C-alpha cells in the first residue's frame, strides 16, 4: 500500500509553508546597513564616577517606555533608586544594569601604564550592537536594530522567554522578575525618542566632563583614532566595540587594559547572528530531503513485506501441494493394503467354507 493522497498533500503543503519560513531566515540581512547610524564614544580617561549620567538616565526614562511603534507615556517605567544618585560609594560595588536600572558606573582599581595604581570608572549599558545577538535570538522580533543605531524593545509582542538575555554576550538585558502580569525586558534604549531625531541621549548631554561623544559611528571611529594618535600614552591603543562581536554603537577608549575595567576581551569579532546561520541553513534541506527519504524507506519496507508475503504464500502453497500429494499417496497405499487384506480374507473365507463343506460331506457319508 503506498502513501495515500491525503498524506502526500498534507506533507507537501506543510513542507512548503515551513520551507518558506526557513528560507526567510537565510534572506534576512536586517542589521548592518545604514552608514549614517549613530554611536557614542566613551573616553574612560575622563570619567570621575560622579553618576550624573545615571541620574539623568533615570529622570529621562522613569516615565517613558520608548518602543519602536509608539512613544508610550508609561508611569513607573523605572522604579526610584534604592540609593540616591549622589551617593558615590556604590561605585565600589559590582552593580550591573537590571530590570530597573539602564546604566551604572562602577569603579575599578587598575594598574596604569607606568605601574601605579589608579581608579578607572566605567559606565556600562547596552552596547547597541551592529548585529545584535538579542534581536537575532528573539522569536517574535521584539528587539530590532533601528537605522539610527539604537536597538529597541517592543513590549507589545514580548512573550518573556528571555532568550535575548541568554544570547547577549555582554549580559546586559534585565528582566522585571517581580512583575506577575506585565514583566518586561529592560535595557538602555539609546534614548531613541531623542536619537531618532538626531538629539544626543540624556546621559551624554548631562555629563559634566564630556566623557561621552555622540555622533555618526564612522566619525567616532575616526575621532577615537585621532585621540589615540594625539595622546598615545593616555590610551590603550584599541577602540573597544569597533570590531567586538561585529562592531557596536557604543565604543570605549581606556587608559588601562580593557579587561581591568570589566570588559570581556574574549568575545571575538564574529557577529553573533552568524553563529546560528549554519544551523538554520540546514532546515530547508532536511524538510525537502527527509520526507522522500523516509517515504522511500517505507516503500522499501512495504515491498520487502510484500515479497516476504508472496514467498510465504508460495511456500504455503508448495507445502499444501506436497502435503496433499503425500496424503494421496498414503491413501492409495492404504487402499491397496486394504484391498489386499480384503482379498486375503475372502480367500481365507472361501477356503474355510470349502473345508467345512468337505467336512460336512465326509460326515454325511460316514452315517
Amino acid at each position, binding site marked *: 500500500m503506498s*502513501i495515500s493522497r*491525503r498524506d502526500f498533500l498534507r506533507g507537501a503543503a506543510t513542507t512548503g509553508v515551513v520551507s518558506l519560513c526557513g528560507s526567510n531566515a537565510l534572506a534576512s540581512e536586517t542589521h548592518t546597513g545604514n552608514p549614517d547610524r549613530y554611536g557614542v564614544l566613551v573616553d574612560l580617561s575622563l570619567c570621575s564616577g560622579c553618576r550624573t549620567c545615571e541620574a539623568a538616565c533615570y529622570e529621562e526614562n522613569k516615565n517613558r517606555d520608548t518602543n519602536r511603534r509608539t512613544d508610550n507615556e508609561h508611569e513607573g517605567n523605572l522604579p526610584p533608586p534604592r540609593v540616591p544618585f549622589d551617593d558615590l560609594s556604590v561605585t565600589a560595588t559590582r552593580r550591573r544594569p537590571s*530590570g530597573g536600572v539602564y546604566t551604572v558606573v562602577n569603579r575599578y582599581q587598575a594598574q596604569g601604564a607606568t605601574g601605579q595604581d589608579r581608579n578607572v570608572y566605567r559606565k556600562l549599558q547596552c552596547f547597541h550592537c551592529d548585529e545584535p545577538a538579542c534581536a*537575532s535570538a528573539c*522569536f517574535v522580533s*521584539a528587539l530590532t536594530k533601528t537605522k539610527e543605531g539604537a536597538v529597541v524593545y517592543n513590549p507589545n509582542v514580548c512573550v518573556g522567554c528571555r532568550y535575548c538575555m541568554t544570547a547577549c554576550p555582554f549580559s546586559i538585558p534585565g528582566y522585571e522578575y517581580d512583575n506577575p502580569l506585565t514583566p518586561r525586558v529592560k535595557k538602555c534604549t539609546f534614548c531613541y525618542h531623542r536619537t531618532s531625531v538626531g538629539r544626543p541621549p540624556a546621559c551624554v548631554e548631562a555629563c559634566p566632563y564630556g566623557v561621552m561623544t555622540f555622533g555618526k559611528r564612522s566619525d567616532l571611529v575616526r575621532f577615537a583614532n585621532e585621540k589615540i594618535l594625539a595622546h598615545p600614552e593616555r590610551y590603550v591603543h584599541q577602540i573597544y566595540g569597533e570590531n567586538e562581536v561585529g562592531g557596536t554603537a557604543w565604543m570605549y577608549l581606556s587608559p588601562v587594559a580593557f579587561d581591568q575595567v570589566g570588559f*570581556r576581551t574574549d568575545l571575538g569579532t564574529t557577529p553573533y547572528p552568524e553563529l*546560528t546561520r549554519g*544551523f538554520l541553513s540546514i532546515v530547508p534541506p532536511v524538510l525537502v530531503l527527509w520526507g522522500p527519504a523516509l517515504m522511500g524507506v517505507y516503500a522499501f519496507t512495504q515491498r520487502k513485506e510484500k515479497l516476504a508475503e508472496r514467498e510465504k504464500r508460495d511456500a504455503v502453497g508448495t507445502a499444501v501441494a506436497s502435503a496433499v500429494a503425500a496424503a494421496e499417496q498414503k491413501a492409495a497405499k492404504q487402499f491397496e493394503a486394504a484391498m489386499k487384506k480384503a482379498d486375503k480374507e475372502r480367500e481365507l473365507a472361501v477356503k474355510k467354507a470349502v473345508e467345512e463343506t468337505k467336512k460336512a460331506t465326509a460326515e454325511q457319508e460316514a452315517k
Partner: protein
Amino acid sequence: MTPFNVVAAAILAVGIPITFIRFTQGLASATNLSDRTPWGFWIGFDVMSGVALAAGGYVTASAVYLFGMKKFHGVVRPAILTGFLGYFLVVVGLCYDLGRPWRLPYPMVVSFGVTSVLFLVGWHVALYLTTQFVEFSPAIFEWLGWKEVRRVASMLTVGATVFGVILSTLHQSALGALFLLAPAKVHPLWYSPYIPIFFFVSSIIAGLSMVIFESSLSHRVFADQIDPEHAGEHDEITLGLAKGAAVVLYGYFAFKVIGIAHGNDWNLLNTGYGHWFLAEILGFILLPCILFTTAVRQQNATLARWTALLTVVGIVLNRLNVSVIAFNWQLPAEERYFPSWMEIAVSVFIVTVGLLTFRWIVERMPVLWEHPDFKDVQ
C-alpha cells in the same frame, strides 16, 4: 490508598499553592532566576530534558511503521502516549517559566522572528504535538467506539510518522542550536558547532531508553492490563531496543570525542569542569553502551532495564550541564545559580501530573492491550 497515591496527593498539595504564588506574584517569588541567569531548572529540566525524553514516540513509530520492525509493535502506543504527554508537559512547564505565557501563540500568529532558532522550536513543538495527537488518536477513537473516525485516523499514521521524524530531527537539534548563541557562556567542552547533532543523536538514545524504562514500569504497575501475548514478548522487545541504544550510544560517544578534537580542548580535560565532562561521557555514555552490549549478548533484560535508567539520568544530566551547570561557568561562585526548592517542587509536580494522566488513560484506552473490536491495529 496506595503509597503512590499518598505521595502523589502530597506533591499536588505542595505544587498547587506554589503555582498560585508564581502566577500571582511573579517569577521572583518562586525562582532563583536572575539577570545573569535567565534560564534555570524549569528550562533545563522541564523543557530541555523533557523534550529529549519524549522522543520515544518518533523513534518507535518510525521503527515499526517505516522500517517495518514489527516486533516492537506492542510498545508503539505506550511510546507515542509517553511522547505526547511528554511534549504536553513541556509546554506546561514552559508556561510556568515564560513571563507572559498567554502570549505563547505569538510567534505563530502575531510576530515572526525568523532569524531565531527558538522560532523554529516553537513552530515545531506546536506541529509535533498535533502530529503525536493524530498518531495517538486511533486509541481514543477505539475507546469511544467511533469506527469510521478511527479508520480515517489510522490512514494518517504513516504520513504522521514521517512528519514526526522530520519535525523531531529539526527541533531536537534546534534545542541544542539555541546555545550556539552563547559561546562566551557555555563551557568550551560542551560548546561546539556540533551541539545540534549531539542533541539530536542523544534524543534517539533518550527515546529508546525511556521506552524500555516506561514499559518496564507499566509491566509491573499495570500487569493486569497487558495482553498476555505482549507480556511474553516483553524481554525480547527490551533487548531489541537495548541493541539499538547500544549502537547509537557508540556513535554518540564517538561524536563527543571528535567534538573535543574539533575544539582542541584536550588540556581542559584536566580541570574541574573537565573531570565533570569526563564523568558525563564515560559514566553516562560509554558505560551504558558497554552495559547494553553486555545485556544483549547475555540476553539479560534486567541489566538492560537498569542501564536504561542510567542512560535516562545521563541525558537529563547532559541537558542540565549545557543549560545550567556549564552555563555561566566563569561567574564567581556567589553569582552562580542554584534552583530554589519551589522550582524543583514545581517540576516534580508536573511529572506527577503526567504520571497520573498516563495512568488514567492507560486504564481506560487500548494502549497496553488491543481492543477486541479492532484487532488489526495498523
